[in-house]
């Protein structure tokens, strides 16, 4: 982890776009976000941002890169519980829940803007509607967890992968990081398996099968959705749980 130059306007704009995808943001609120003091650090691929048991005094806003929440079990088994794009605050809960009950790490080289809790509290005090929007964001987080729980418990391996690739398309689109149906998705098949409760061997088989069926091409560099409707149907993907108020289809 090393310090880096302050965030560019376009990097801060990811947060604005993210919030605008789930609600309204006034001109004053945008101005306050653009002024929010943050310490930027660059983290390597696979670096921990905050660990289970720690009591952070700041939240990390993802400016570039890709991040996950995870828990580590005995013998090194890992369950990834969520993925996070630029514009997300994966540890926003630390503002109210003092001790981390899980860890947060990068899955690609990432730039994060660390914001002291005091600044975030002041922002929410001055702009209560922004506070409500951040609350809404954490509620949507919970909705995503519910959907993932259904997937891990009740969907087939093909459906889990199809559902995840549809979800990430809409989440990347919300922050302006898709082009047509394509997006950068820098995770390994092992990481996808750790998120979906599948073995790396089976993830490899299914990605191959989805490619052969002309539904989606997915590799370490990115995802190219060839048949959006077909992938949605396979994954039983209904985007309601993302509660996006704008742009619900890539």
């Amino acid at each position: 982890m090393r310090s880096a130059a302050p965030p560019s306007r376009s990097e801060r704009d990811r947060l604005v776009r993210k919030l605008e995808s789930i609600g309204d943001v006034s001109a004053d609120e945008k101005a306050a976000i653009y002024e929010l003091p943050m310490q930027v650090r660059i983290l390597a691929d696979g670096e921990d941002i905050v660990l289970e048991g720690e009591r952070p005094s700041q939240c990390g806003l993802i400016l570039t890169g890709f991040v996950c929440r995870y828990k580590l079990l005995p013998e090194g088994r890992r369950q990834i519980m969520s993925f996070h794009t630029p514009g997300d605050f994966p540890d926003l809960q630390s503002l109210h829940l003092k001790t981390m009950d899980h860890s947060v790490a990068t899955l690609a080289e990432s730039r994060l803007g660390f914001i002291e809790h005091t600044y975030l509290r002041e922002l929410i005090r001055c702009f209560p509607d922004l506070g409500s929007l951040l609350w809404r964001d954490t509620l949507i987080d919970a909705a995503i967890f519910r959907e993932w729980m259904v997937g891990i418990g009740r969907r087939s391996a093909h459906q889990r992968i199809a559902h995840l690739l549809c979800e990430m398309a809409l989440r990347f689109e919300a922050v302006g990081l898709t082009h047509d149906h394509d997006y950068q998705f820098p995770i390994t098949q092992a990481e996808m398996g750790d998120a979906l409760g599948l073995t790396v061997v089976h993830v490899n088989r299914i990605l191959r099968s989805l490619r052969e069926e002309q539904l989606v091409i997915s590799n370490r560099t990115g995802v190219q959705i060839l048949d959006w409707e077909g992938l949605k149907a396979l994954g039983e993907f209904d985007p309601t749980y993302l509660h996006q108020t704008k742009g619900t289809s890539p």
Partner: protein
Amino acid sequence: MTFTRQFVKVDTGGPDKEGCLLFDSDDALVAVLVRLTNQHDSEYAEKWFFEYGFGIRTHHGHPLFNGIEEAENWMASRKFK
């Protein structure tokens, strides 16, 4: 513990089709092994993959083995009973 082997074809949803069932001394099915093709990365290709196990109480993961005998030895050390 000795195991009985039965070679079968398995539909894994992918190119890996060569399978081996392992039965324990009570003739109960305890493991499904699948030989991985070279369409997987080199660290996986040609290995025997522990696709599914029965009767193991603790988490066992999905290890890879160089041969079926290696898988049987591993099973014998973990089988619950």
